[in-house]
Structure formats: C-alpha cells, structure tokens
C-alpha cells in the first residue's frame, strides 16, 4: 500500500486550521486498501518550512501552499517556496492557495508546474471537491511518474528543469562553450548545462556517433555509410566518426 504524505503551509492560524480540516476530510474519503493519504506536516511560516525542506530527508509528496506568506510585499512568498521545493524534489505535487488578485497562471503552470490552485472563497463545497480532485490527480501523477520516467529526458538550466520526450529528440551536441550542450528536437532548439558523456549514460538508446554528437537513430532521415553521413529531418547533415561505424551498423542490422 502506498501512503501519500501531505504538507500544508499557511501563515493565518484560522485558515490553516480550516484547510487542515478540509484536507483531512478528503483524505478519509479517498483512502482505500491500495492507497492512504495523510497530513504529515503543518507549517505557519516561510522560514519554518524552508528549514524543514533543507534539513529533512523524508519530504512529503503533496504540498498545499499559501501564496502570500507575509503581509510585506518584498518578503519571500509561496511561489519562491514552491520553486525551491521543485528544485529539491522534481516529483513534488504543488497546489497553491490564493486570493483572486494573486493569480499568476503562467508562472504556476510553466515555472512551478503547479498541479492546481485553489482560490480562497466562501464556496466550501466547491473547495472541498477541488481538494479531493487534486489529491486524486496527485496520486495518479506520482504513480505515472514512476512508470514514465524512462521516456522523458530532463535537463537543467540553473534552477530550472525542462522536460522533453525522448522520442522527439533528433540529437544532442556540444557547443563552442564548455559544459554547454545543445538539444535539437521535433519542436525545440535549446541549450543547457551538461556533459555529453553523462547524457549518454542517461539515454543509452542514443548512439554517440562522434566526439560531439549523440544521435537518436530512430529519428534520422537517412544515412550514408560510405560517406559516413547522417541526415536529419531539419536538413542538417553531420559526419560520423569512423569508430562509430560498427555501432551504427549493429543498430541498423538489429532494426
């Protein structure tokens, strides 16, 4: 049986208690013999949860975060907190608790990849349904993440993580800058930090055809073994190293 742990961070005591109560209700409703939901941690300030995340090795799976954790506008807020959690824990499921004028949808969706947001209002029933749905969705996503992990390539730029489907990648190559790689995919041209050697360990299905190119052989347009040329759907053509010829041939045979 899998247990999903939930953390709550809300600085207002009354509201904290209230949301705690509502989440507990949803937990009871959702728990079955296969899965269990429980609130493992409750926080009342940015500092306390910050400390916890940085020191604890056992982190919760699902977070409910208030956005405005202080009345001063320049203080750290829930969004910064969420980004921090996301960096520590890629699988964290984050749900924001917000008032209407704090809504920043793009930031929620793309920067934090928040699961959902709950707008504080008086419509109790609606909020209760939303919490239940969000917990269900979180559990599903967490399970899915375990299964799908292999098909997604994650790369990092500073504090940010980006994901691309491995099947969409054409190739990954080095750039004139050291430790900077380039990724060319069906709908994407990106640069990120990394070493081509480590990348190959992450995606063993790709073939390192030369010092600087790691190629997804599934997506090439054509190959010329005599001239040692690989053509990509982008129209680019690269020459592969003599030493890679055997590996490439093996791949083609196996196909």
């Amino acid at each position, binding site marked *: 049986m899998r247990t999903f742990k939930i953390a709550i961070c809300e600085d207002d005591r009354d509201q904290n208690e209230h949301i705690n109560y509502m989440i507990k209700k949803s937990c009871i409703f959702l728990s079955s013999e296969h899965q269990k939901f429980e609130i493992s941690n409750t926080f009342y300030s940015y500092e306390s949860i910050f400390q916890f995340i940085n020191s604890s090795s056992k982190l919760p799976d699902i977070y409910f975060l208030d956005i405005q954790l202080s009345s001063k506008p320049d203080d750290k807020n829930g969004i910064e907190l969420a980004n921090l959690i996301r960096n520590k824990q890629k699988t964290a499921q984050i749900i924001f608790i917000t008032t209407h004028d704090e809504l*920043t949808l793009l930031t929620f969706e793309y920067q934090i990849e928040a699961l959902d947001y709950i707008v504080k209002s008086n419509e109790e029933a609606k909020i209760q349904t939303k919490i239940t749905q969000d917990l269900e969705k979180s559990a599903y996503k967490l399970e899915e993440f375990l299964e799908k992990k292999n098909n997604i390539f994650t790369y990092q730029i500073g504090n940010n993580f980006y994901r691309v489907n491995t099947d969409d990648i054409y190739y990954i190559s080095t750039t004139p800058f*050291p430790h900077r790689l380039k990724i060319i995919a069906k709908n994407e*041209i990106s640069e990120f930090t990394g070493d081509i050697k480590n990348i190959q360990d992450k995606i063993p299905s790709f073939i390192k055809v030369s010092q600087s190119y790691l190629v997804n052989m599934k997506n090439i347009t054509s190959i010329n073994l005599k001239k040692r040329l690989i053509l990509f759907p982008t129209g680019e053509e690269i020459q592969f190293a003599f030493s890679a010829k055997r590996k490439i041939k093996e791949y083609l045979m196996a196909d």
Partner: protein
Amino acid sequence: MFAIFTYLLFLFSYSYQLLIFYKLNQYRLGSIKDILKIIIILVISIMILDFIIGQAIFLILVIFFYSKKSQLSKIVSTILFANLITYAADLFIRLIGLSFPIITSYFVPIAVTYYVLVYFLIKRVKLYQLFIKEKNYLLLGLIVYAFIALHIIGLISMKANQDLTGILITALLLFIQFLFMIYAFYIQNKLFDRRLEDRLNKERENNLKSYLKNLEYSEEKLRRFKHDYRNMLISLRNAIKEDDNDILINKLDRYSENELDQENFEEYKDLIRVKDLQVKSILISKINEIDRNNIKFSFECATKIDNLDKLVNPFDLSRIIGIAFDNAIEESKNNQIGEINAYIFQNGKTFTFEIRNKIKNIPQLSKIQQTGFSTKKNHQGLGLSNINQLKQKYPTLFVNYRINNNWFIFTLNIVGVDE
C-alpha cells in the same frame, strides 16, 4: 644544447600564441579533445625546425582544427593577431640586439616582461569584444596586411647583413601604426556601445515617464471611484429607508461592473516587483506597444527582480528582451488569433524570461536561428541572429526555442556564477 634551446623557444612561442588565441575567442579548456588538439598542433609544429615553414604549418593547423563554417574570419583574425603580437617581440628584440649587442644578454627577461604585459593588457581591456562580430573583413584585412608586412621585414632582416637600423625603424613604425589602428578600432567599438547606451538610457527615461503617467491616471480614477462610491452608499442608506432599493442596487451593480472589472491596468500591476530599472523600462515600453496594437496579452512577475547587473550587462539584456517582444508583436499583429503571454521569474541565481505567442503556421524551428531567416515575410529576421550574437558574450546565458500546441515559446535563462 642549442637545439634544445630552440625547441623550447618554439614551444613557448606556439603555446603563447595559443593562449592569446584562446583568450580572444573566449575558449576555455574543456575536454580531453581540446587538450589533444593542442598537443597535436604543438608537436607537429615543433618537429619542423625551419622557422618559416614551422610557423606556416602551425597557423594552418590552428585554422584547420578550430574553424567552423561561419567563424572562419574570426579564427583567422585571432590567430594571426596572436602570431603578430608574439612575433613582433621576437623580431624587435633581435633587431635591436643587432644594433645594441648589450641588449642580447637581457633577451629573456625583456621578452618575458613583454609577454606577461601583453597578456594582462588583452585581458584587462577585454580585447575579445573586438572580435565578436562575425565577418569583420575590415579588421581581418588590417591584420593580414600587418602580418604579411611584418614577416617580410623579418625575412629581409634575416637575409641582409648590412645596416639594420633603417629596417628596424621602418618595422617599428609599421608595428606602432598597426597597434594604433587596432586601438582606433577598439575605441570606435566602445563609442558605438556608448552611443547605444545613451539611446537606451533616453528610452528608459521616456518609458518610466509614461508608466508614471499611467500610475497617476489610475490613482486619479481610484479617487473618483471612492468619491462616487461614498455617494452611492449614502443614497443606498436613504433608499433603504424609503424601501425602493431594487433600482438602486441594480445601479450599484452596474457601476461596480463598469469601474471595478476594468482590466486596463492589469498588465502593469506586476511591474511593481521589477526593481531593475532597465528591464522595467523595456517591459513598460513593450507592454505599451502591445496595448496600442490591441493584442490579447498577459504579463506576470511573481518574484522580486533585482541585481541583474551582476549577471549580465543590462543593455544586452534589454536588447534581448526587446527583440523577443518585437518578434512576438510582429507575429501577432493583424493576426485574428494573436495572443501574447509573458512572465519573468528570479529565484536564487537564476533569472528566467519567457514569452509565448500564438502562431498560425508552424515554422521550421531549425531555420529560425539562422542569419536572415524570419517567420515573417519581410525584414525582422535579423532579430534572432542578433540574439545569437549577444549570447556569445555570456557563457551563462541560455536561449531556448520551443513550439507547443500553436504557441511559439522563447525562453531566456541567465544562470549566476557561483562565487
């Protein structure tokens, strides 16, 4: 004994040239491949004891190993420049030594001082900036000319045994002339940058003024609203007494709807968190432009944005943001489904700017980055290649292009260097 000394001298000369070459191209020793390249170049060059052929082979090897399609002129300029600087010291000390034999015994310390000085000077004035522009044929021409001239003088001086003072003076003058030209180039570059800076400063001022006006306007509106609302509450109280509140409540609703739900200022409200004036200014100006073009738009900034000048030159940053906005605006103008969303975010040492616009036809991503290509039929295509050029200045600046469900997404990430 003498042979070993010559080898060492050659080795030093070639290594120094490579060092300057790396500095000017802002390369850093990264992989084993790099080190291998250098070893191959050095070994082959040293094996050839003939000075002229050795030099030629060395230059050819470097150009061969490092040139890429688009960067040939840059590679040639930088390696020839490195060669010139190195060779000049050798030549002049030798020539002066012939006239004043006493100098010869100080050959090594003088040369070392010269090389160290030149290295730090190049580092100090950030000379690499001079070579960033691709296909700078004027600069290339100048360097090639000086290179040929200096080597011819070197050849003559080696063959001729007569009075060398004339040759020395000519060579010195020529070299000084060359240095002066390089200096002129450098200053011109600087002046250009400064002019650009001035222009951006002026722009910034104008943008902030219009932002201020906008703020004042909304403040004024708020005051009016307060006033109206108070009146309305008084009427409401009277109406309750007189029992015909339906009409008045309707009126109040209508008024609130009109005045409260206006989203005029919505796009600007997050700008309060942007403390960096240069970025704030470019955002204001572009949001204004989007407003004027009646394009559906949203802008978000959920974190404080500050201290960006530690990561990147603010002018370069605002140019990149400006170009990204221009492209999005150009694409969304006269486009039925046109829509632009943007957000900025700063967390710890990472700064993120993302802008996405709806597109009608999906462009070929691979072509977008190339010089001169544009998703639009007319001009503008220079934009993204300009970004590519600015990007070269910073190893910490990352640009991503993605297409996702009819959205073209441009992301800029600047990663702080750990101190």
